[in-house]
């Protein structure tokens, strides 16, 4: 089991070294809070906070910094290039496991009945129920979130990972790639 901890730590250390080698961003500690965002709809509170002047009312200047990859985000924070970032719970638990000196101070939303993130199939696919996932080609992006959702969905259908055909190595870090993956007909299911 220890083997699984090592890549998370190593990737973060590697990212820290990269940030340390390029001290490019100005460090204006007093005036500005630099916050990571992913250019996503899920970052709506950041856009609203800026546009409705909620931080201005507090006397703060907030600067959004586009950065992806949890290791990069943690490394940038430890190096002082950004001040706040977001981690999914998997990243958070691994950071805690490695005793990385960060603190989560708020959660940025949860799923609800109207949530549309989940297992998506091609619109014309014959997969209409979880039971139909047997033998389906499922794109695995490698994230902990994807693995969790997939495992729980399969469990609900009385199946496990061996009942599907995992297609690895497909990068699914933005919605255009999600569409491309499904439209390519190379996979039947993506988690997005």
């Amino acid at each position: 089991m220890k083997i699984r901890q090592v890549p998370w730590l190593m990737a973060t250390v590697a990212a820290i070294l990269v940030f340390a080698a390029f001290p490019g961003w100005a460090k204006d500690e007093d005036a500005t809070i630099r916050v990571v965002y992913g250019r996503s709809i899920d970052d709506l509170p950041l856009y609203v906070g800026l546009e409705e002047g909620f931080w201005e009312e507090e006397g703060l200047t907030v600067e959004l910094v586009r950065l992806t990859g949890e290791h990069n985000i943690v490394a940038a924070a430890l190096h002082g290039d950004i001040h706040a970032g977001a981690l999914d719970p998997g990243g958070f638990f691994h950071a805690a496991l490695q005793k990385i000196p960060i603190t989560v101070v708020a959660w940025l939303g949860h799923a609800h009945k109207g949530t549309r993130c989940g297992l998506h199939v091609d619109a014309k696919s014959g997969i209409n129920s979880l039971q139909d996932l047997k033998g389906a080609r499922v794109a695995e992006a490698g994230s902990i979130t994807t693995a969790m959702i997939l495992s729980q969905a399969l469990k609900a259908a009385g199946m496990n990972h061996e009942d599907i055909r995992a297609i690895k190595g497909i990068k699914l870090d933005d919605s255009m790639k999600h569409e491309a993956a499904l439209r390519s007909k190379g996979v039947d299911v993506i988690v997005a």
Partner: protein
Amino acid sequence: MLEMHGASRLLTSFNDVIPGYIFSGLFFTKKYLKKNPEKVRAYLRGLVKAFHFIRDHEEEARQWIPKYTGVEKTVAMRAALRAFEDGREPLERLYAQQEIMVKIGKLPHRVAVEEYLDYSWLPEEQDPLGGKE
């Protein structure tokens, strides 16, 4: 968004398989918290105001999505949003998610998160927008 483009059909949602699934958390380094406590509290007051604004003025809030994401307005006005409340989530729910990770081999063992999670930076549990509701 995928569905709106006609590319996909949702088979099952995050909420169907893990009710109330917590998506992500906002973190600061311990060093930054120690050095800038008032800035962090001010930042979080603004953030929670934004959560409440989205809840109470959703359509108005959605108007800002295209500017920052490049998503077309028709999608921005209809896409599902996360449920934003006051930034707090129950520990039991976090541990339930953690338990799944351990079971599927994505976390070697249970981790006590309390040392790395601190809600005391958040404003008191009240609507910071007050009269705006």
